[in-house]
């Protein structure tokens, strides 16, 4: 059965009184939502709380779900807005500067950029990548994550974030440029330093 149609049927069942049906939806979407929150918030505990709160919020609002977009898109929208609220309430600055990344982080990144990776990323490398996402402004970060990590198309991203396709493309372009500039800078700097030592 098509995924979106299956979701609609489950939602109808839940609205008729089957609370257990929501467990199916939580199991189906928790990975995506947890990953999104983790990449947006860069903090495991905050991400876990945010993902749970977004899923509970979605349940409470299920009666207002009109099916104008897929449940997945609707759930992402709730999560995206919840993450933005969490980020807005934080007292620390949400956007790191490239300079604030540690030497160890930069060496991790240089290794990844210079050689790629054949096997799956280790957790410490994951943490570094999450920190790298934090150098992007929130508006660019959310688009970049939805496109490059979650693999969503531009139309879905525009629906989730409530913006135009041109805005999605513009933000994505700026995010990619910023990361690429730092990747080039990093590989060049470290290569030059290594040559200097020789």
């Amino acid at each position, binding site marked *: 059965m098509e995924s979106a149609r299956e979701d609609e049927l489950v939602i109808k069942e839940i609205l008729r009184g089957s*609370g257990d049906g929501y467990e199916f939806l939580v199991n189906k979407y928790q990975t995506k939502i*947890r990953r999104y929150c983790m990449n947006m918030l860069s903090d495991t505990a905050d991400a876990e709380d945010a993902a749970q709160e977004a899923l509970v919020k979605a349940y409470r609002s299920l009666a207002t779900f009109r099916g104008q977009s897929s449940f997945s898109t609707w759930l992402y929208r709730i999560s995206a807005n919840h993450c933005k*609220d969490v980020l807005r309430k934080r007292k620390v600055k949400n956007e790191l500067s490239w300079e604030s990344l540690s030497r160890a982080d930069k060496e991790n990144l240089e290794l990844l950029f210079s050689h790629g990776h054949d096997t799956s990323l280790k957790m410490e490398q994951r943490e570094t990548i999450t920190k790298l996402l934090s150098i992007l402004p929130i508006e660019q970060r959310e688009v970049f994550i939805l496109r490059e990590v979650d693999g969503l198309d531009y139309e879905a991203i525009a629906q989730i974030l*409530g913006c135009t396709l041109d805005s999605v493309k513009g933000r994505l372009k700026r995010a990619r440029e910023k990361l*690429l500039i730092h990747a080039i800078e990093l590989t060049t700097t470290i290569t030059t330093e290594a040559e200097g030592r020789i």
Partner: protein
Amino acid sequence: MNHLNSDDITLYLDNGLDELTRAKIDNHLHSCDSCKEKITLASRLKTIFAQLPEPELSKDFTKQIMSTIPRKQPFKIDNLFSYRISTENIFQACSLAAAVILLTIVPNNSQQSSLDLDDLLLAEFSEEESTIILNEKVSNINFISLGIEEE
């Protein structure tokens, strides 16, 4: 051919180019180390983000969520934005107007009630958007209430 710009790189990696343009870029890459390096790095960045491992979070994640939600039909409410005032439900409209006005003028000690309403109706929106929508709603309901008094 000129050096690749960020649009060329994006379209090249997303397979969004026609064959001719792609062939031109491939030719350019054979002779331009700088652009070749850019494409290689951009491609690695793309792969790294696409293959990020899942975050390790608690194993009873689903259980925790299911323990906080009632196993019964959620409270169903018609879409407030399209709520129509008629002779049959005029009392409901007045009650709703009073409730919304109270929620907006009673200070912070009623925060829990306010959040319940947000959760129920405005979960799709960020707090900033919710405030704008709620303010618009209060204006509309006030207008409707005035209309009722005039009659």
